[in-house]
């Protein structure tokens, strides 16, 4: 199990192991769940109250289903930890953050300087994704 390398939260990390979506349905006390690319994030929406950690696995970074899963959870009001795990690379950090991920556990440790540069790369953003950053169109018409 890879360590969390970047975390943008102040609360205590959840110690419980993340269970599969199937197991989560059966274990009414579980607070951490792990989504695989084919899992339907919307199935977790009825249980957001007890969820404190959702891990979204990227077995290969080119499988982008996890981005939609992240936004689906955030749009449904999930405020717990949303962790990207697996094939998490420098050049995906920023777009993951924009989709709502706030912790990152790459399977291979990333260069800290390169990662810092990647998180800070974009001065502005074109889209509203619910990550709190105003879209460029909002800045243009802010008055």
């Amino acid at each position, binding site marked *: 199990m890879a360590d969390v390398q970047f975390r943008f939260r102040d609360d205590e990390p959840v110690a419980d192991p993340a269970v599969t979506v199937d197991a989560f349905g059966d274990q009414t006390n579980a607070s951490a769940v792990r989504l695989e690319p084919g899992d339907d994030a919307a199935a977790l929406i009825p249980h957001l109250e007890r969820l404190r950690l959702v891990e979204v696995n990227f077995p290969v970074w080119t499988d982008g289903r996890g981005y939609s899963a992240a936004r689906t959870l955030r749009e449904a009001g999930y405020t717990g930890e949303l962790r990207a795990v697996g094939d998490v690379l420098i050049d995906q950090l920023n777009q*993951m953050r924009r989709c709502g991920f706030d912790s990152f556990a790459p399977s291979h440790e990333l260069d800290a300087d390169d990662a810092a540069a990647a998180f800070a790369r*974009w001065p502005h953003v074109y*889209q509203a994704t619910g990550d709190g950053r105003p879209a460029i169109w909002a800045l243009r018409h802010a008055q």
Partner: protein
Amino acid sequence: MYKYDSYDQAMVDARVAEFRDQTRRRLEGHLTEDQFRPLRLMNGLYLQLHAYMLRVAVPYGTLSSAQMRMLGDIADKYDRGYGHFTTRQNIQYNWIKLEDAPDILADLATVEMHAIQTSGNCIRNISSDQYAGAVADEIVDPRPYAELLRQWSSFHPEFLALPRKFKIAVIASETDRAAMRLHDIGIKLVRNAAGELGAAFYVGGGMGRTPMIAPLIREFVPLDQLITYSEACLRVYNRHGRRDNKYKARIKILVHELGKEEYTRQVEAEFAHLLNQDIEPPLAELARIKAQFVDPPFAAGLPDAVDRSDPDFALWVDRNTLAHKAPGYAVAVVSLKPVGGIPGDATADQIRLMADLAREYSFDELRVTHAQNIVFPHVRKADLHALWSKLEAAGLGTPNLDQIGDIIACPGLDYCSLANARSIPVAQKISERFAANGKQDAIGELKLKISGCINACGHHHAGHIGILGVDRKGTENYQLLLGGSEGADCSLGTITGPGFSEDGVVDAIEKATDLYLEQRQDGERFLDTFRRIGMAPFKDKIYG
């Protein structure tokens, strides 16, 4: 034309810095080629048979003179003195060095250009009608909507690792000049019964190995929901598009397998949800963009007459100019299909000349067409002769627009690592054959399209005559298709039968066109005759 503000410029500059950093990490060995490949592809950089190829985006095909001049300068400075205009209204350079690529992107950024998302499994450059803003049959200029979508799709964090590439076209007239229904999403601006402007969405079209014509999934999306609806279409695709087989990963397969109704139902559910997420730019943003696409200051009271005393000029006027919406003006098209030439290629000097001529004669504006030609959208009729003379002197006066010599061809096996067969020599032989036999004029409109492999970059499915190059036991073999169309009467071509050698396919095309000349009735195009009499007589003629 759209002008970047400080936000747009900052985004493109940041992209240059990002790619410079990625290239550095690759050259220093911190990134493997496997890790780097998708990153360079997002910036339009392919590794081809002989060198890197860089594809530069020309959003909705519109260029200023300064941008066109830069494209010429890049061809000289970093390539071998020429560029290749593509069927996506972009330009490609075929002989690029990896270490130069960041500098090229930096040069492009100085003229508000980039190579963002011209490749990779993301939303690609958005294409549109090459005559937008110049012809009378559009209900509105489609380009502001394409620009709105360009900004939304640029670096969209959710959609940078889609199952497969994703192409969007926007049009605003009944005459479809952008092959709209052969795109992943085709958007057609329409008016509803109340006279309000909105967008019809066609989703799931495409060419490639499984060509499909996109079905209409929604007749009317209000303008202030355009981005939200697009996002819903993409999210359903990102979640459910097939990832087990790259040949079945395009959205057309998802729409086909789910069925149009089920796909639409899922999109509508996602759309209803997203309407509450405040992701739509305000109409004021659309108004801001629209203000930059106002008509240039057309002069009033210009004469419509053209002095036709020079027969070569008169021929070019008849073939390569179109009616403009403003009296006294014309749309002029430069054919990049000289007899025996490489379709879509232009030298650095030719590119710079066209830039100068656009400044002098066309309000500083040019267009790239998906048929790999260049348009001067707004030329005074009184200036046509001067424009033509300068084009003609530079080898750019070929009078064959939409004729059999105006061939669309992909780069094929001469350049492309995916190709099975060469496209360019076939195009050259066809144009030479029909120049020599003198039948081109008699045949009239005939759209001929050649792909060097099943990926169909040369749009062979949509050609009145299409050619598909395949590899048959180590030998290049060419299949012939008839009856395709990319227009409002969109249809897919049908294979005639067994394939041909390179020379054999040229002979077969001549036979097919001979049959057309024998059989055509009052003003029918080749396509019309084919549709009326069907494949059987063509088969008899070709194989008999």
